[in-house]
């Protein structure tokens, strides 16, 4: 890219950021987030339509499917602005995880139609790939859910976990083990044999377990199979890690800003508590974590938006940023509460909304420890290949 394009893009990004922030703060006040907690499906389909009106549901979608073919960098601005308001809509799970997966999985008629509907904001697909309780035993390369081909189409049998959104999703991209290896299959939410068990999460939203008891779908619902399926799932997963990190960074920024404001205004012993050096130094450490996260995120977005990046580099980068963002998110959340004191853990104070969202997002798709292990495995293989 030439310098001009760089600065043009920076300006476009900055416009997008401003418009997303202004939309989010106007249309999604924290009272809205509060009201939707613990109310299935945990978000507002009407608000989703408003997102579609802004064009954001189609931001990542190719132009051929009615989207704007923008990069993750642009998507991060929207996701970050909404996360800053703790908006409960499953923007990253649907638009990034499911959306990118549909885009990567192939160019079939069904995938294209689903993508077009997603861009239009009329379809909310979710990815159902995990099966393990903690995720530690899940691998992107294979699944325990079984896929069988019958005369009438495809038949699925299995149990999926940690599916976001569960309730409220119109259908699921299910990973399953077939004769040709991993397969990705589109299963409408109303398919016979599919049952949802909603599990409340800390932030008042829901994940689901999806039970697939001899679910039958037409053969054309097979979106991808074999290495192509693995590659598509891995890539979409990595992109989702990065965008989830963007959400976490937005939470970090808000929690830290609230804390600084509190430190400046709360008076004890005749002085603002922000004048106490021990608290100042802890605030400095939080700043460092925030800025580390921001720096790694910027690097990750650039790398994943770059067409020449290798799959391994992408995965290592994605795990790296998710590890930093997850741990920084929890550290800032804990310290923000501690520096606030008792008020920090009351439900009526807004900090708790952020802390609880941080708990959910740091756990989703693998927390810091889990991501570091993936990173170690990826880079170790890299090193060994280099040595070989």
């Amino acid at each position: 890219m030439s310098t001009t394009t760089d600065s043009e893009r920076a300006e476009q990004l900055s416009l997008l950021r401003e418009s997303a922030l202004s939309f989010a703060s106007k249309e999604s006040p924290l009272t809205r987030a509060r009201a939707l907690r613990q109310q299935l499906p945990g978000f507002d389909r009407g608000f989703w339509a408003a997102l579609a009106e802004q064009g954001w549901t189609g931001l990542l979608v190719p132009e051929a499917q009615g989207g704007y073919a923008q990069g993750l960098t642009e998507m991060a601005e929207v996701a970050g602005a909404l996360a800053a308001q703790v908006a409960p809509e499953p923007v990253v799970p649907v638009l990034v995880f499911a959306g990118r997966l549909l885009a990567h999985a192939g160019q079939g008629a069904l995938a294209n139609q689903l993508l077009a509907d997603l861009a239009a904001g009329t379809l909310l697909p979710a990815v159902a790939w995990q099966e393990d309780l903690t995720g530690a035993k899940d691998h992107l390369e294979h699944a325990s859910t079984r896929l069988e081909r019958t005369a009438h189409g495809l038949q699925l049998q299995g149990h999926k976990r940690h599916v976001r959104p569960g309730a409220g999703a119109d259908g699921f991209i299910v990973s399953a083990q077939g004769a040709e290896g991993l397969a990705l299959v589109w299963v409408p939410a109303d398919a016979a044999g599919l049952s949802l068990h909603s599990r409340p999460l800390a932030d008042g939203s829901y994940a689901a377990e999806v039970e697939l008891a001899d679910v039958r779908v037409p053969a054309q619902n097979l979106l991808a199979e074999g290495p192509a399926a693995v590659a598509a799932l891995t890539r979409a997963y990595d992109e989702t890690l990065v965008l989830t990190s963007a959400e976490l960074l937005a939470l970090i920024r808000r929690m830290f800003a609230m804390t600084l404001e509190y430190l400046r205004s709360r008076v004890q012993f005749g002085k603002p508590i922000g004048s106490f050096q021990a608290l100042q130094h802890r605030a400095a450490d939080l700043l460092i974590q925030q800025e580390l996260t921001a720096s790694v995120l910027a690097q990750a977005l650039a790398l994943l938006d770059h067409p020449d990046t290798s799959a391994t580099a992408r995965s290592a980068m994605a795990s790296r940023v998710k590890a930093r963002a997850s741990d920084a998110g929890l550290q800032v959340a804990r310290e923000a509460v501690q520096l606030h004191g008792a008020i920090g853990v009351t439900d009526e104070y807004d900090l708790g909304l952020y802390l609880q969202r941080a708990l959910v997002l740091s756990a989703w798709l693998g927390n810091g420890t889990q991501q570091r292990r993936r990173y170690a495995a990826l880079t170790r293989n890299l090193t060994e290949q280099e040595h070989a």
Partner: protein
Amino acid sequence: MNTAATAPSSTDWNAMDNESFRAMVRAFFEAEYPSELRYPKRRLRWAEIKDWYLKLSQKGWLAPSWPTQYGGMGLSPEKLIIFIEEQERWGVGRAPDMGITMVGPLLIQYGTEEQRAYYLPKILAGEHIWCQGYSEPNSGSDLASLRTEAVLDGDDFIVNGQKIWTTLAQDATHIFLLVRTDKSAKKQEGISFLLADMQTPGIRVRPIRNIAGGEDFCEVFLENVRVPRTNIVGELNKGWTIAKALLGFERIFLGSPKQSQYALARVQEAAERLGLFDDAGFVDRYTKLALDVADLGALYGRFIEQVKRGETLGPDVSMLKIFATETYSRLADLLVDIMGANGGTPGSIELPGGPVDALTSFYNARPATIYGGSNEIQRNILASNVLKLPT
């Protein structure tokens, strides 16, 4: 053993040997404490713990530390510690015990004969349940800056102000208050200690919901509340001295390793169910914390020995509270961490072998490092009062 277990309440418990006493207490708890209330994850409400409270009351065991002449068990520090250890061991939930641990000792030491005669029996009968009105919205760590005011008007004080973080005020029948009775005096002076009936007009309680969904704490609003002048405890304007004196050896229990031991057991349980003891990375982290818990126990034991010898605890006891609550917090983090993708799921999570709760300890760990003197205040105390660092 059986004879001891049915000993009348006028028994001289301190004459028993420690092992018999422990066995007796243990047997009673094991037989009588409702098993569904063992190791409660949150503070129990009056409706839940009431039966147990009254059972203790009937047995004469409600006030283990009060002198026998006032209806207590009159336990020596050594016996009292055994009593508390057995409570902790069996996971006996904490009752609304402000009347027992605070108001009783306060009245015994500073109260008038009339106050003692009126209040103490009602506490022992479970008729009066007390809560503590200390903190205010603008005086948390800096308690002495409190502003709730009591102005004399004939035979009454008129109290105006607001208290906050009052534990289970919604269950209490009475409140003891620190109030400012002399605005012209310096900060710590001009504060008095006042007793009030929660039914008094002008007192309004608002429970504060916390992020875990509980309502352990309340705001208490006081608007032109008339409190009889006779309800003052000790001298006028000497409330601060009394409040400080009340910080008895109970504060050692803020540093009890029990909470951490319990959390460690939960981590171990979860790890067994997840097969993590084959994972050297987990085992390293687990062992470090297991040793922190064990070593906390050793440090705690040193202070307990001091109490048993009848010595007064110094400011160095702050060490315990810091290390206990921060170890607990690290254990809570580890539990969330090993639950992986389920780390953001509240409540029970079914694992093969039984359920695990990932987040309750995480939520509990938050106030633990704040209440009872935040860990920042505790470190200030160590720096100035123990290490004698300059200010």
